[in-house]
């Protein structure tokens, strides 16, 4: 059992870096941490970066999780081999690109590209958002799955993921007390379903709702409240059709032994207790 400590970053390929920069800063409110010839690194909290857009294909999407020790990477390589998802150790050059000491890359059974990183760079510099969006940090990711039940087994047996709740067959999984850090959602092919950033308050969700609509950024779901995690949310569309989410008020699972996952319906009602309807099939 490999312990994932936290989610770390997403790396997204794009053919239009400047459009991605405009969105990530002007709309999402992130801060450019570093600019290289072929990539842009964005800060959302005290970490060096939590989002990276690089010149490449939009289908090239990676999500990274942090592990605590070098031994975890070795153990993960063995466990992934046994689980039928062989992993490759990252090169020094690729580690440098990711601002980590070492990493392992593999694909989950659906084909989502995942990295396990060791000693990712922190930052002494305060995060100062481009706009007052109230972003407190990158928090979770939703991944498309071609077989949610199979992928749930993968994440909960190879790794320390625990199911917090299910919407239909879609598990919301935690790797620490936060209700969910990985959501597995049924889809036709692998890919990032959504990227979540936490904001500081209800006001931030609602003010962004007004701002996004004014800027004609498609709001695809919300404002709403998830019955499962109790988080207030807003989903909207970013570059290359990647969905982003702001949310506030996600619950913690503090008492592991007595917590029991619950089954919610895979519908708008199961995903929002305020009555919001997703404009696309998000769940």
């Amino acid at each position: 059992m490999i312990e994932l400590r936290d989610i770390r970053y997403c790396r997204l390929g794009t053919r239009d870096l400047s459009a991605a920069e405009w969105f990530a800063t002007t709309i999402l409110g992130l801060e450019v941490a570093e600019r290289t010839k072929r990539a842009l690194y964005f800060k959302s909290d005290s970490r060096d970066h939590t989002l990276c857009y690089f010149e490449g294909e939009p289908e090239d999407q990676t999500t990274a999780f942090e592990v605590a020790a070098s031994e975890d990477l070795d153990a993960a390589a063995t466990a992934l081999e046994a689980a039928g998802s062989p992993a490759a150790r990252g090169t020094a050059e690729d580690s440098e690109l990711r601002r980590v000491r070492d990493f392992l890359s593999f694909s989950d059974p659906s084909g989502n590209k995942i990295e396990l990183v060791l000693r990712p760079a922190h930052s002494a510099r305060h995060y100062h958002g481009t706009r007052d969006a109230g972003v407190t940090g990158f928090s979770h990711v939703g991944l498309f799955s071609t077989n949610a039940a199979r992928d749930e087994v993968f994440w909960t047996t190879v790794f320390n993921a625990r199911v917090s709740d299910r919407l239909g067959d879609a598990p919301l999984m935690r790797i620490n007390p936060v209700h969910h850090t990985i959501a597995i959602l049924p889809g036709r092919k692998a890919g990032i379903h959504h990227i979540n950033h936490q904001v500081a308050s209800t006001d931030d969700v609602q003010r962004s709702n007004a701002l996004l609509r004014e800027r004609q950024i498609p709001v695809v779901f919300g404002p709403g409240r998830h019955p499962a995690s109790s988080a207030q949310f807003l989903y909207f569309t970013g570059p290359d059709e990647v969905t982003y989410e702001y949310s506030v008020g996600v619950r913690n699972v503090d008492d592991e032994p007595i917590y029991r996952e619950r089954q919610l319906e895979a519908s708008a009602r199961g995903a929002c207790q305020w009555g919001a309807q997703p404009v696309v099939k998000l769940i």
Partner: protein
Amino acid sequence: MIELEQLRYVRLGTRDLRGASEFATGVLGLQHVRTEADRAYFRSDYRDHTLCYVLTDSDYASFALDVRTAEVLKRAQQALSDFGLKPRFGTDEECADRRVKAFIAFEDRTGNSVEIVLRPLMSGWRYFPSRDTGVRGLLSVALRSKSRDDERLWTSVFNGRISDWVGDACYIRMDRLHHRLSLHPSSQAGLLGVAFEVESIDQVMQAKYFLKSSQIRIKHGPGRQPTSGQMFITFDGPDGMLFSFVTGMSTIADDQTHLPRQFPDVASSYCAWGSEVAIPELAGAESLRDN
């Protein structure tokens, strides 16, 4: 100084009593108490009623506050007369209609009709809403005002205190809550809106989606008042009246130390979330001039 106790009820004229009643129960979720010929009464809390629809001209609108004793009521009559208004005591029949022991009715300088009541009826029975809108009670009313004298009426004749101003609009409190009454400069007279408190943000936001699906026009919000901190959604009711569901109004603990703040007369002083507003009185000076 006349001590007012509580905001008690609103009485609204309607040309369609059945339609207004359906709105009160089906949309607001209030509990129907009784319908008598040309009256329909609705509860929102522990009181006998807080909303009464009267089959008459739809311009008719009044609201009531209560005083504690008959002596205070008498003093109120005197004080209002001294202020240059024309208060009158209600007849026995009118008292019975309002479920109060006695009352005086008057119009403020603008022409808004107000009632000061004594011993209004309460109900010993638990409030049981028609629909789960999370209503906890009648919270505040908003009045149009054509005269600066109206502010003086509430703060010098009565015990109202200014909590904040937005331009010349003012929020007036009578207890710890930020406001029970707000006055909004307007070219017309009349009650602008009636606000019911709901349990939490959940009910405000549920109302948004419910109203949309019911094709009831949302005029303002969901939003948050920068002045009172309350979250609100304001929508069209029958006969041109606005209704709001609100939650989270701030309290003012110390009357002595509270200094009313002056907010600019702009739309963002009425909503910190940037919601759209379709109410001229709440859209800021620019918009009011355009009207």
